């Protein structure tokens, strides 16, 4: 019994000791997640809209992009950009490499989320907009996209949470984010359990905060919908 109590005290001591040391890593995790979500949204929107244009070749290119990104592991994509591209003479620092890989990765998934919600908007909405004399783009921007965005919020929330957790893979290209710090701390102290526990709590705090923000957004957008 004493052993359990002693171990528990030891455990929490380690947690309290290491929790502040994680802060720089958590900040990096937040940065990676933030930029890859924002850029991923932009990429996703552009790709989704381009896929819906009448130009077949554009649609083909976007399909190739989505197929490659969804069909290969993110880990491989990170290696490819950071370790692979230099052999072609393209050198990118580790942080921008990670952002590029994560943004391209999220962009592919987000584009499919957007495409689905754009296509779910009743065709009559487009017809009503066009019959007022709007161009295709005006109808898209003023009528279709605002409604589509609203519908895509739940699926986007899912993707954002995945983006937060996927940012941990950036550790393989030397980014000292939360997971790499955890690995380093546990290697130095051999005290595996409390350290990964602390890292896990940080991820939970981030994803729970994100979920809260997203449900607020959803609530706000839903107010006037049937």
């Amino acid at each position, binding site marked *: 019994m004493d052993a359990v109590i002693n171990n528990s005290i030891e455990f929490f001591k380690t947690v309290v000791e290491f929790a502040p040391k994680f802060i720089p890593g958590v900040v990096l995790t937040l940065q990676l997640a933030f930029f890859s979500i924002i850029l991923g949204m932009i990429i996703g929107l552009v790709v989704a809209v381009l896929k819906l244009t009448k130009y077949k070749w554009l649609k083909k290119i976007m399909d190739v992009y989505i197929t490659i990104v969804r069909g290969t592991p993110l880990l491989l994509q990170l290696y490819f950009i950071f370790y692979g591209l230099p052999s072609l003479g393209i050198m990118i620092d580790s942080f921008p490499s990670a952002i590029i890989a994560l943004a391209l990765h999220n962009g592919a998934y987000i584009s499919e989320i957007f495409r689905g919600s754009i296509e779910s908007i009743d065709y009559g*909405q487009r017809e*009503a907009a066009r*019959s007022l*004399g709007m161009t295709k783009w005006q109808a898209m921007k*003023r009528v279709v996209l*605002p*409604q589509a965005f609203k519908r895509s919020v739940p699926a986007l929330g899912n993707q954002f949470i995945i983006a937060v957790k996927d940012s941990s893979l950036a550790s393989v290209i030397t980014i000292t984010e939360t997971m790499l710090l955890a690995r380093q701390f546990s290697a130095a102290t051999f005290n595996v359990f409390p350290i990964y526990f602390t890292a896990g709590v940080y991820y939970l705090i981030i994803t729970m905060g994100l979920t809260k923000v997203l449900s607020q957004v959803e609530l706000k957008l839903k107010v*006037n*919908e049937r």
Partner: protein
Amino acid sequence: MSMIEIKNLHKYFGELEVLRGIDLTVSESEVVCLIGSSGSGKSTLLRCINFLEEKNEGEIYIDGQMVTAKEINEIRQKVGMVFQRFNLFPHMTVLQNVMEGPITVKKMDRKKARELAMTLLEKVNLLDKANEYPAMLSGGQQQRVAIARSLAMEPKVILFDEPTSALDPELVGEVLGVMNDLAKEGRTMIIVTHEMGFAKEVADRVIFIHEGQIAEEGTPEDIFDRPENERLQNFLGQILV
């Protein structure tokens, strides 16, 4: 002067020929009702006029201007359209719905667009709903907003595609009332409708479409009291029972 001129219009959906050579001229201030059984092509005809459906053959002129893909955005500003299912923009208030066309398409300044929209909402008796969202409105109210929205573009012609077919019976009257007012103002209107009583009262001319062709046309009296075409007699027999 003719506001709309349609010459030899043909439209196919795949193999199916939906419109088989329509010739139709509508003068300024004329109210024309299109009647016919479902699948006869009357809605398709209406949708071809503002290019929501692309015609396969024939020519359409609106206010002297030929309807082509290239100039369609300009032409559509002259042609209002009211849909069976209203198609209001659910993410905008009633007022914003009505202001949207003038602001986005005509680049009218907000204040002016707002004044215009308020005047039109007053006209369709919905001034008190200006700041509501469409979802809060009844079908009849939504359709009146849709009418105000199309009027905001100051169209030369308004096309109505079965404007009361999606409404509960007790709400039909308020929409027809607004349309009646528009007819009295001398607006050029083409109305696809199943409301024979309304057609009888408001139309200058009634056109019976059967299997993609104009089978009979004339004054409401001609069509309803002295139908000549056998198909029309059958059709009226079915509806008026």
